[in-house]
């Protein structure tokens, strides 16, 4: 019983992070019509940046803001790259471009950052600096940070989308871009905002990865993107609610499998569950039967 609670707690933590990734990717999809296959790579390269800044300066605050620099990377680098293709509604080409960006970022990490070796963060950072034990159940300070940060981000995002003029404009675009255009809502501005929000979220995600896992390697980027896509499919492409629900479901399934099964079955079983759910409900859990 205790073990179950321990696994569920771990599932909540990784589920929170998965939710953040899916929401960031879904936001870009519904506002800017982009499935950003480089999202995970941007999270991980932000981790690398953070690690570099920490190594060079020893300043935790500076390093943290380095992680947040993802929004800068996203908006300044990727958004203009995709603009031309998006305007011409070239969906496949846009997708391929984002995959290419992801690969380039992975290569940069593999060749120029720490000579391609995995990076590890100091123990003072990982775990958040403390933990509490309740028998078998260990709750690290980092776990609390993850839950709090995720809650804070979700509430802020909700407030932005539902209580502000600009947020409502973004929602209008996600529902009906033609009408939004006729109303004179500036689409480019909305796209930029969605990229900035996604960037901020990916930065926070990087910071949360740092305090929970504490290590990163160039391959991690693509892996994170893949998980993000899986959650998007599970919850329903483009559904923010679905991203939250799907994220937690994936997180909890993975942790339960890791806990109760011997061997590295977590990924396979989790993906298998997702496949089954999508076959039954192609629109995703929130999306429905389509």
């Amino acid at each position, binding site marked *: 019983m205790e073990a179950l609670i321990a696994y569920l707690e771990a599932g909540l933590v990784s589920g929170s992070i998965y939710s953040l990734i899916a929401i960031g990717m879904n936001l870009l999809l519904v506002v800017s019509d982009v499935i950003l296959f480089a999202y995970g790579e941007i999270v991980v390269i932000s981790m690398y940046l953070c690690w570099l800044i920490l190594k060079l300066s020893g300043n935790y605050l500076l390093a943290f803001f380095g992680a947040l620099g993802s929004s800068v990377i996203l908006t300044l680098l990727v958004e203009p790259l995709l603009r031309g293709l998006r305007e011409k509604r070239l969906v496949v080409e846009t997708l391929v471009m984002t995959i290419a960006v992801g690969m380039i970022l992975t290569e940069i990490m593999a060749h120029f950052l720490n000579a391609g070796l995995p990076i590890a963060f100091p123990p003072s950072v990982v775990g958040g600096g403390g933990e509490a034990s309740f028998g078998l159940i260990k709750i690290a300070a980092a776990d609390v940070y993850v839950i709090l940060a995720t809650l804070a981000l979700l509430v802020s995002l909700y407030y932005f989308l539902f209580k502000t003029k600009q947020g409502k404009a973004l929602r209008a675009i996600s529902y009906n871009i033609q009408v*939004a255009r*006729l*109303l*004179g*809502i*500036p*689409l480019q501005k909305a796209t930029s905002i969605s990229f900035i929000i996604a960037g901020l979220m990916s930065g926070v995600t990087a910071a949360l990865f740092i305090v929970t896992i504490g290590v990163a390697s160039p391959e991690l980027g693509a892996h994170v993107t893949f998980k993000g896509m899986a959650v998007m499919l599970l919850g329903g492409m483009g559904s923010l609610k679905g991203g939250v629900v799907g994220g937690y479901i994936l997180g909890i399934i993975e942790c339960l499998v890791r806990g109760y099964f011997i061997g590295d079955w977590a990924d396979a079983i989790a993906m298998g569950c997702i496949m089954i759910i999508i076959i039954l409900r192609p629109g995703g859990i929130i999306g429905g039967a389509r």
Partner: protein
Amino acid sequence: MEKNNSFLLRVKDLSISYGNIIAIREINLKVEKGEIVTLIGANGAGKSTLVKGILGIQRPSRGSISFLGQDITWTTVDRIVASGIVLVPEGRGIVMEMTVMENLELGAYHRREGVLVSMEQVFEQFPILRERKHQKAGLLSGGQQQILAIGRALMADPVLIMMDEPSLGLAPILVHQVFEIIAGLKKSGHTILLAEQNARKATQIADRGYVFEKGRIILEGPSQDLIHNEMVSKAYLGG
């Protein structure tokens, strides 16, 4: 030299093409403050294209458009709406998934102040919107959605209201209601450019009209003249 500032809207020798197909050509049109100007003609004659061209959705291939003395031929949609031209689109253009109130708020996107006052005015004029303000707009009937679309246009505190087929798909009694609303808008000082297939109703409330046929204006004048014109009467007003 012509004075442009006496007209709210001036369209000169405008042509718009979709690829190789010329949709409208050599359109010359003006709208003065406080008028209702109507564009009548069959489906596909070019009325909608002109309206979209003025809004900035369609790029002209020739000619110019000026609004309040400023050339807006190449201005982007968002700037054109911000400067005071709004469109009540064909098919209402309501965001179904958002509430009545949120739809109205979208109409005021470009405004900095006075939004609450405008919303109160819209609710005064259209009580049905106040009743349903927190309902998703998709739950409204066709007639109610048309009223919402008009209310949303008013939320922009517009200088020029363009309407594209407001009576389309509505039952006769609702058509009557919509035209009453449009006539009432003129009374409260608004300027309206109305593209309508229902030529009879449109010419009844309009001051002037332009008749579109195959992408050109074939006749123009005060609506009284159009009503009594034999050709127009036969072709568009049911004889």
